[in-house]
């Protein structure tokens, strides 16, 4: 082996190793910084008396509502977005004219390229006014459901508006993964279904969906992972409060998310409060790592191919 060979081998192996070190470093430095805030005595510490951490007795009572808000907003985004995303994937893979399919797929991928702050501005100036009449309607007729109850917002800065923008933001990832796996359905299965006289929808039900079930599940989970960590849409659009609330149409009952809370309060916080925000970030890291871990595990268990992994990295 020549020296150049050896050096190059060490360099590339080292880079791969560095990736492991970086991920471990992310966890490690978050833990080191988060430690003081987690173990601090929240009711007695003057640094935690004001601002965002005012009135909490421990870190856990502070992070609890934030975790709830994060999960709840992502769930709304998923309920609104996932069916549409899977529909789009089906349209592109099995319904659209073959020649157009590539262009249409690219259009949806373009959604992923729009910066989140642009979606935030769009949500504020377009979505908020747009959904006000819709919110009034929901509140008037379906107000007896806890989800739609409460004093309806007149500004539109609600969980529903935030969830709607989040749903748009997670469309591309769910669509691109589902599309790839729909396209991988064995042609023979599809042709067999058609030969038995199925309509196109029956063919999809008989051949495509059974084959793609785990792929759809992990695509949805990856979409959930994206929604959990999305900051700007929530931070800019909704008027938040730290509470356990399921109301999505009010000004005062919007549960805050971890990411938006950290983004909004970080600039004005003192060092210990920043540590507290970093600790909530650690919680977010653990949650989204878990969700991604499960999604990737499902893909790898069902023999996900290269194409599927490629789609997921977009």
């Amino acid at each position: 082996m020549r020296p150049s060979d050896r050096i190059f081998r060490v360099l590339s192996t080292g880079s791969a190793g560095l990736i492991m070190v970086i991920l471990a470093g992310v966890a490690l430095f978050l833990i080191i910084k988060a430690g003081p805030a987690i173990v601090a005595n929240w009711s007695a510490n003057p640094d935690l008396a004001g601002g965002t951490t005012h009135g909490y007795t421990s870190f856990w009572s502070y992070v609890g509502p934030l975790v709830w808000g994060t999960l709840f907003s992502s769930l709304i985004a998923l309920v609104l977005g996932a069916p549409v995303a899977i529909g789009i994937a089906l349209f592109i893979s099995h319904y659209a004219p073959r020649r157009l399919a590539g262009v249409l797929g690219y259009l949806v991928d373009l959604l992923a390229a729009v910066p989140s702050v642009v979606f935030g501005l769009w949500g504020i100036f377009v979505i908020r006014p747009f959904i006000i009449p819709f919110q009034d309607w929901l509140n008037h007729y379906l107000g007896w459901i806890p989800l739609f109850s409460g004093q309806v917002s007149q500004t539109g800065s609600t969980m529903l508006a935030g969830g709607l923008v989040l749903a748009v933001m997670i469309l591309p990832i769910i669509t691109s993964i589902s599309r790839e796996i729909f396209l991988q359905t064995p042609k023979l299965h599809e042709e067999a279904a058609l030969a038995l006289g199925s309509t196109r929808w029956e063919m999809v039900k008989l051949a495509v969906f059974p084959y793609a079930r785990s792929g759809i599940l992990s695509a949805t989970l990856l979409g959930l992972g994206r929604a959990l960590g999305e900051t700007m849409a929530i931070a800019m659009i909704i008027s938040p409060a730290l509470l356990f609330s399921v109301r999505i149409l009010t000004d005062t009952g919007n549960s805050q998310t971890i990411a938006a809370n950290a983004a909004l309060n970080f600039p004005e916080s003192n060092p210990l409060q920043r540590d507290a925000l970093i600790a909530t970030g650690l919680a977010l890291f653990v949650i989204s790592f878990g969700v991604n871990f499960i999604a990737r595990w499902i893909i790898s268990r069902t023999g996900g191919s290269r194409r599927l992994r490629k789609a997921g990295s977009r």
Partner: protein
Amino acid sequence: MTATTVADTETRAPRGPVPNALTSAQLPRFVELYTLAGALAVSAAVLAMTGFSIVGWLVLSAVLYLVSLGILSTVVENRRKATDRVVRGLVTIAFLLAVIPLVSTLVTVIIGGAPSLTWDFVTKTGGSVFDPSTLKVTIVQGAWQAVVGTLIITGVATLISVPIGILAAIYLVEYAQPQQWMARTVTFLVDVMTGIPSIVAGLFAFSLFTLLVGPKAFSGFSASVALSVLMIPIVVRSTEEMLKLVSSELREASFALGVTKFATIVRVVLPTAIAGIITGVMLAISRVIGETAPIFIAASFTSNFNANPFSGPMETLAVKAYADYKFPSQDIAASYQSAWGAALLLVLLVVILNLVARIIAKAFAPRGLR
């Protein structure tokens, strides 16, 4: 409406006791277009009486279309075909639902940002200027500091991520055995890393630099480190894909000539895959250039000009758009205007990066992969 005439002509067709998909009644070929036109017309007429709105019109038309097509097909054809037609309508509507936000976002940004996007806006440093003689504060609209900040922060992040990402991909494809624990761990971790929330990357960079440098750790370099955490997995993933496309015959031919592994990779494999790798890198840049949260956590924000990535706060276009909206100056309209300008400039950058990436991929792809 067309419905009655269609039903009239079609029910005259002979129907055997056992319905047969090939011979039983069928709707005419373009029935979906007719129904759509009918639905649009009827809902327009209905809304003309109650008060017209484009959104209401489209929603009502969509519902009317699905319902009438379903009923029509059930009556004339059979339930299975009706379901098929309704599902076809539903997935098409799903796709249109995705196009609406895309078009709406782009149009809003262009309309909002175009008035403020002048040469002065791009090349002047924004901020307020206090004139001591007249005691008046004039606000200068400008995004120069953010343009420079964006280029520096993203540039440094690219310089960090690209070598690490490409070398790691070379390790995964050229050196590692697929079943080796390290290869499997790295592959898996890279997959999981693509899902790290961007704000967590920002909090990580802030933690790292406060522990290393002290409490005043805001700097452009810190933001670059945050972006690198987000960028490395994207670069690894796309480079890996491209290296795997290089056919093994090329490598074997090179080895057979006695060329070393290092020279094979650098002289044969990389040149073959270089277009794809560059495309991947550019797409990765376009992904992170629009990040907001990690940058203002790691680099804070400022309207001052700062071209030194190693000290002091720095601003990017995305952060400027956010800060101008969230913390407007006394002249709120002007601040919003400048937020839109920054947003449009950012979208233009992203679009250009995407286009150039696609062009490179198309133009320089090796033969056979095109």
